């Protein structure tokens, strides 16, 4: 065996160029694998974070009947006494904040916007003193200021503001139907513009103060939802059922973000399957490369092979010699690939790729806005290294088997 290993490594240096080219192909495959996996894991990680930070919070309390009617954004299927419930949650050790979400038409006045217009919007009424404890709009302000309780003011997502040409100081009018069905119109001054990293939010966000909306819409102290924040490591399902217990019998339901974002998570799962195929293809290419190299290497040495077989070297040992040789190429390639992968990943993790121009007008399902960053994943790097070596080793079996099928005189005659 010692002899076989030393022969294999001497043969690697015999065809330096070819060894390096094949190892290089494996290295590139492994580098791509590490990079793609890092970017996708990063996008997923950030998406989940942005989903929780700007859309769903960790757990949300709704009226029992709200979830199945959520697309209509009903105001009458609500959480009554939002203040009392928020207080009760705080007593139980949770951080909570009420919100009222409703749909309406936003009227744009020619005085400010140059021409009249209107667009349908979803308005989120927030409590300016509580909401930033739950959601993370705190550091997203792009212009102006945040809301204050009781004022007739609005905050817009920066992409929406850009689309309609809104600036701080402009006035907008929201026409909607209040709780009970009456028409109501609200004049709000745009006091701030936020650049929310979650594109789904940034594309359509209109925020106003919770109490102002409550007055206009006759909510009588009710909210459409109470949002609760948990630590990142919390078991949200368990927490949701704990919270549910606090409100049993009161007609309220606590849902965790995984339940609310089931559509997104299903999509992410499907995407992972798709990217698995890409990664599989990268490895197939590397495998074909090494298989070809080994085939060439073996047929160039076919007379040597005939000599070794004549002298009584068993098929098993001959196979071992070539397999060790391929493993050597795989090892070199994997090593270089991991080094390159780590170098590229330094860039991907710390600087990232700006894909804002794609995401601005197209929803690719990820909740990331502009810069796509990777994450470090030691498991992936280890897996890439092992896979590169193991696949090279396995692949060498096929060309060796092909050569061993030839009879010995044919090997010896080979030119």
């Amino acid at each position, binding site marked *: 065996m010692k002899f076989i290993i030393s*022969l294999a490594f001497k043969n690697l240096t015999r065809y330096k160029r070819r060894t390096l080219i094949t190892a290089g192909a494996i290295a590139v495959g492994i580098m791509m694998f590490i990079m793609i996996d890092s970017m996708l894991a990063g996008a997923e990680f950030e998406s989940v974070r942005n989903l929780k930070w700007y859309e769903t919070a960790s757990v949300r309390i709704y009226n029992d009947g709200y979830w199945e009617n959520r697309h209509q954004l009903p105001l009458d299927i609500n959480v009554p006494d939002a203040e009392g419930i928020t207080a009760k949650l705080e007593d139980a050790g949770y951080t909570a904040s009420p919100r009222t979400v409703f749909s309406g038409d936003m009227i744009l006045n020619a005085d400010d916007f140059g021409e009249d217009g209107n667009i349908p919007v979803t308005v989120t009424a927030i409590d300016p003193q509580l909401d930033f404890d739950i959601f993370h709009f705190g550091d997203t302000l792009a212009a102006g200021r945040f809301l204050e309780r009781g004022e007739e003011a609005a905050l817009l997502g920066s992409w929406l503001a850009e689309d309609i040409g809104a600036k701080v100081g402009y006035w907008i009018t929201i026409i909607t139907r209040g709780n009970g069905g009456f028409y109501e119109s609200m004049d709000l001054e745009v006091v701030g513009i936020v650049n929310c990293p979650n594109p789904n939010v940034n594309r359509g966000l209109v925020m106003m103060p919770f109490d102002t909306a409550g007055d206009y819409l006759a909510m009588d102290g009710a909210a459409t939802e109470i949002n609760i924040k948990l630590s990142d490591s919390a078991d949200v399902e368990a927490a949701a059922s704990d919270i549910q217990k606090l409100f049993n019998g009161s007609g309220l339901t606590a849902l965790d973000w995984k339940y609310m974002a089931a559509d997104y998570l299903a999509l992410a799962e499907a995407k992972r399957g798709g990217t698995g195929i890409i990664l599989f293809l990268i490895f197939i290419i590397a495998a074909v490369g090494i298989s070809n190299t080994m085939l060439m290497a073996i047929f160039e040495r076919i007379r040597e092979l005939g000599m070794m*077989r*004549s*002298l*009584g*070297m068993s098929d098993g040992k001959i196979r071992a010699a070539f397999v060790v040789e391929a493993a050597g190429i795989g090892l070199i390639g994997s090593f270089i690939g991991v080094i390159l992968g780590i170098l590229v990943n330094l860039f991907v993790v710390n600087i990232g790729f700006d894909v804002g121009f794609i995401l601005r007008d197209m929803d690719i399902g990820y909740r990331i806005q502009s810069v796509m960053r990777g994450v470090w994943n030691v498991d992936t790097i280890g897996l890439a290294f092992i896979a590169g070596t193991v696949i090279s080793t396995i692949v060498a079996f096929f060309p060796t088997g092909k050569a061993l099928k030839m*009879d010995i005189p044919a090997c010896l005659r080979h030119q």
Partner: protein
Amino acid sequence: MIKIDNVVKNYANGETEVKALRGVSLNIDRGEFTSIAGPSGSGKTTLLNLIGCIDKLDQGEITIKSETVSSMNKNEKTKFRRKNLGFVFQTYNLIPVLSAYENVAFVLSLLDLSEDEVRERTMTILKEVGLAGMENRKPSKLSGGQQQRVAIARALVKNPEIVLADEPTANLDSGTGEEILKLMREMNEKHGTTFIFSTHDPMVMDYAGRVVMLHDGQIKSDERK
């Protein structure tokens, strides 16, 4: 020691069949220095391959040391060759990345021997074939004749019963070829190894103790000197 009994070997060459050996019978004793002679295409390589247990015959039987090698399976043949047979090839077939020493020691690595014994036997045989001091040279740093000496050392190092050499001098100039033949003869006398080599060179036949002439797959003459 070697009994070749009415051996027939045909090759399927597309549609037509080539009759390479048409009933060859031959006995070779231990320690003989036998040349298989004959023109190109007469069946020399085919016969050596069959004796060397690296090819299958169609009819007849070959027995070596009372073992019927012609009916062995692949693994048995491999084992038999490893233990009993040495080969010398027209094109030397040394492994270019290995030194002369390693090319010879390779054969012993297939057997269960201690490192000391491998070293001892390899150095001794290299000295015997006249390569003392050149152990660490790669084949590319050796002349054709020296390379064939390495090949002879490789064939002999495990003390096989039989060494088979298919046209061992065909790639060498006549002077060098003669030296190689002298060396083989010397080894044959010293170790008592049975040598069977093929050639179509009349000069080579002069060195043989016995010349078996093949023609069209049949033995035309068989002369001992």
